[in-house]
């Protein structure tokens, strides 16, 4: 018997390397506040990754006239059976909380673009062994369970997100919609997604593998996922603890497929399609960004060449919008402080000056007095001398 060459071991080698290196996964959760984003994160990873917002600090935000959208990043290292995964969770608290929500999506969109750009710059460095990668691999957009349809705000941000990341829409708190309502709601959302050209993430259909193809098909059919989150565990039968929500009228199990799509979503995010999410981010979204970015620069050069005019056409990055009013306030405060300081100093100097002038005048006066005295004395001396003669 001939011994095999051993090339079949390549996947095993690869496996070893990968399991040693671990993986990085970045997940973004976006959506209006109060839709259970934090709870969902904690449910998904079965740990208390993200603490809930302290409700007493909530009021501090109101003190500023315009609440801003923040970007919170939570880094965590998860280990399961010796395999490590570096997890970045990006939360966007404050989205959709204002009366006027125009452009409230810009911080989120800017953040995603920034990560792409950062990564691109790092790639262009001569030394690029250690790359910091915060590119968002998947973005869960939480939809309010209204039972009607999507709001214009939802559509606007989903359009923008879908061209940049793997967008996965989810219906939050789906336990307040009954099955028929949920089905109608899902149908409307699907219609909107289709007719508004929102590219949501679809798991690839692997035709060679009927089992996985079937699984993917199921996943696609149940988009957008209706989810329920809970951090509490209840004992439904002896020794059997299940995560769920306990109502006076019943018990909703998070991991029950009849109650919600949580299991499907988890399978999509972690178990079957994580690699695809990471790869597609790199291959599709990052590439589009890169080619757009680089292509833009080339185009600008061409324009200059063709027309023979030296008009720099927005080749410089457009100035980032500092929509955060906090910065403006701080700037104003600093300016005010500065001018006040300057004023105070000036005042002091003026005081000094006037003091000095006064002193000088006084001294002059003294001098004059003394001179006068001297004169009189001299006169007296003269007189005396005269009288002596």
């Amino acid at each position, binding site marked *: 018997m001939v011994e095999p060459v051993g090339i079949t071991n390549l996947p095993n080698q690869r496996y070893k390397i990968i399991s040693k290196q671990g993986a990085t996964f970045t997940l973004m959760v976006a959506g209006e506040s109060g839709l259970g984003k934090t709870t969902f994160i904690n449910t998904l990873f079965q740990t208390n990754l993200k603490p809930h917002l302290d409700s007493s600090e909530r009021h501090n935000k109101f003190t500023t006239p315009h609440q801003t959208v923040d970007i919170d990043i939570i880094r965590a290292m998860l280990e399961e059976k010796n395999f490590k995964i570096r997890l970045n969770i990006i939360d966007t608290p404050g989205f959709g909380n204002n009366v006027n929500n125009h452009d409230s999506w810009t911080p989120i969109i800017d953040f995603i673009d920034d990560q792409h750009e950062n990564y691109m710059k790092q790639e262009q460095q001569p030394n690029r062994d250690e790359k910091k990668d915060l590119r968002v691999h998947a973005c869960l957009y939480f939809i309010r369970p209204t039972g009607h349809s999507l709001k214009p705000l939802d559509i606007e941000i989903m359009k923008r997100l879908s061209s940049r990341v793997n967008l996965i829409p989810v219906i939050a708190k789906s336990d307040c919609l009954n099955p028929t309502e949920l089905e109608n709601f899902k149908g*409307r959302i699907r219609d909107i997604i289709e007719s508004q050209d929102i590219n949501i993430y679809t798991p690839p259909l692997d035709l060679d593998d009927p089992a996985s193809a079937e699984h993917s098909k199921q996943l696609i059919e149940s988009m957008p996922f209706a989810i329920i989150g809970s951090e509490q565990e209840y004992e439904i039968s002896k020794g059997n603890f299940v995560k769920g929500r306990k109502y006076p009228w019943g018990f909703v199990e998070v991991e029950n497929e*009849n109650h919600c799509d949580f299991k499907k979503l988890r399978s999509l995010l972690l178990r079957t399609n994580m690699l695809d999410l990471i790869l597609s981010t790199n291959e599709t979204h990052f590439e589009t960004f890169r080619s757009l970015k680089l292509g833009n620069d080339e185009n600008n050069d061409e324009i200059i060449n063709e027309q023979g005019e030296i008009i720099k056409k927005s080749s410089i990055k457009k100035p980032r919008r500092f929509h955060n009013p906090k910065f403006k306030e701080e700037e104003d405060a600093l300016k005010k402080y500065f001018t006040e300081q300057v004023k105070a100093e000036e005042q002091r100097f003026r005081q000094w000056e006037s003091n000095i002038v006064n002193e000088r005048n006084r001294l002059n006066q003294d001098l004059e007095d003394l001179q006068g005295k001297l004169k009189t004395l001299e006169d007296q001396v003269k007189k005396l001398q005269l009288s002596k003669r």
Partner: protein
Amino acid sequence: MDESYSYESPSMVASPMINYRKDARKGVKFTFMVVGESGTGKTTFVNSLLSKKVMAHRFENSNLAIVDTNTISFTSAKNVTLPNTSILTRNDFDPAIAHEEPGIAITETKVEIIDDANTKLQLTIVDTPGFGDNLNNEVCFNEIENYLKQQFDLVLAEETRIKRNPRFVDTRVHVMLYFISPGGHGLKELDISCMKKLSKYVNIVPVVAKADAFTVEELAHFKSQIKIDLEKFNVPIFQFDNYLNEYDEDEDYDLIQECKYLASIQPFSVISSEDEFEVVENGRTKVIKARQYPWGIIDIMNKEYSDFPVLKSVLLGSHLQDFKDLTHDFLYESYRTDRLTKVTGSNLGGSDAIDDGTTGGDFSTSIPSLSNLAQLTSTTALPLDDDNASFTSTTSSKKPKSMLLDDSDLQSSPRKDSASFTSSTSTISLDQSPRNLNTNNPAFKRLSIAPQRNQLRQISETVPYVIRHERIAERQQKLEEMEMASAKELAHRAAMLEKRAAELKAREKALKKQMELHKEEADESKKEEADHSIRKEETLTDLHSIVKSQ
């Protein structure tokens, strides 16, 4: 607070206020408004409150011929009404236009319900579809505020009129149910600013919508958060325990307990449903309104987790009259005071002086009202003097001359007022000569009444007009604004089109140039080639010739 107090829900008739009203036969009129973000279950709430399908759901194509829903006003988000953005077409679901901001509309639905004791209740339900759906939601509460103000204005105008319209319908909104979306974190900026703004015009009862999204502990937490928020931002909502001191401790013990209980469970958390299910309970089948989930069935009338029955009895029974009285006695009254002081200036001050009996017995004290009216006409909205004159003539057609005189005098020297008044008084006294002549001489008492009456009459003549005028001016302004916005939009679009045209032209030019260039290049290259070949031939021939010559 007595937690153990079990709340007995009275039926609609239980309220003595309704039962013993004289016009019980005619029916009780009641108007309430539901405001809240879309998808918080307002329509379902109304339908299950009245146990019949009153309002159509969004995207529901059903013919509701039984009840009429009128759209009163509509403002689109961009001030430009495009036919397809109109929320009036909300029954059709069109995903292609879902990204457009819906604006806000105010609709009115009239229903009449009759209960067992033959008490008629004429309900008017005001809905605000589109609220909270826009990117910029400021337009929403401005619209609602305008609507509420308008209703007050209508009543005020009617009240001050001499000849009253017997068929005048009071359209004031008595209570507003504000639906708080079940976020779990507390109130949002929109909720707070909206409630604060509207609380001047209407009793607000906040309601936690879709309470079935909360577990018991979460609901308690959310309610307490809302209470904290309401307190922190000073949102004046309807207080059930406000007037408890007026009641007799022993006599109205139950009432006091009831109010305390209501105050303790506020904000009400409701679960509503239109679907009915048959449930077997204690061997008997019972039809209940409920929501069915795979994990259980929710009876919306179950007081353990839903305040729906409590709210229903409060709204349609026990506190119906309270809402009405408070609207009229407190909200409307303060609005009226504000409005009239604004409209008539120190007019009221003058009347107060008369009431105090400090009149000098002189006519001039009552007169400043006129001057104030003149002043007000000169200050209200109209910048042009010509308009001014025409307006004054409309306000009091009887004495246009004196008004004009006042006006001009005011402009020249306000100190001369009294002088000009004599002239105006003379004209007035001509109108009302018999009484005035009488009252000029005799008792001091009468004297003080007469000018008051005069004044009242003047107010009643003027105020409705002024109010109406202001409203018209406001509307005009709004229209102008809209026009401007649409003009802007049009200009913007035209500019865009022009720009595009210019771009296209430029591109065409460039292409042409390129083509020419190509042609020239081609020609040149041809020529060059030709030259080249000729030269080559020449050189060749030269060589040939040289060779030949050699």
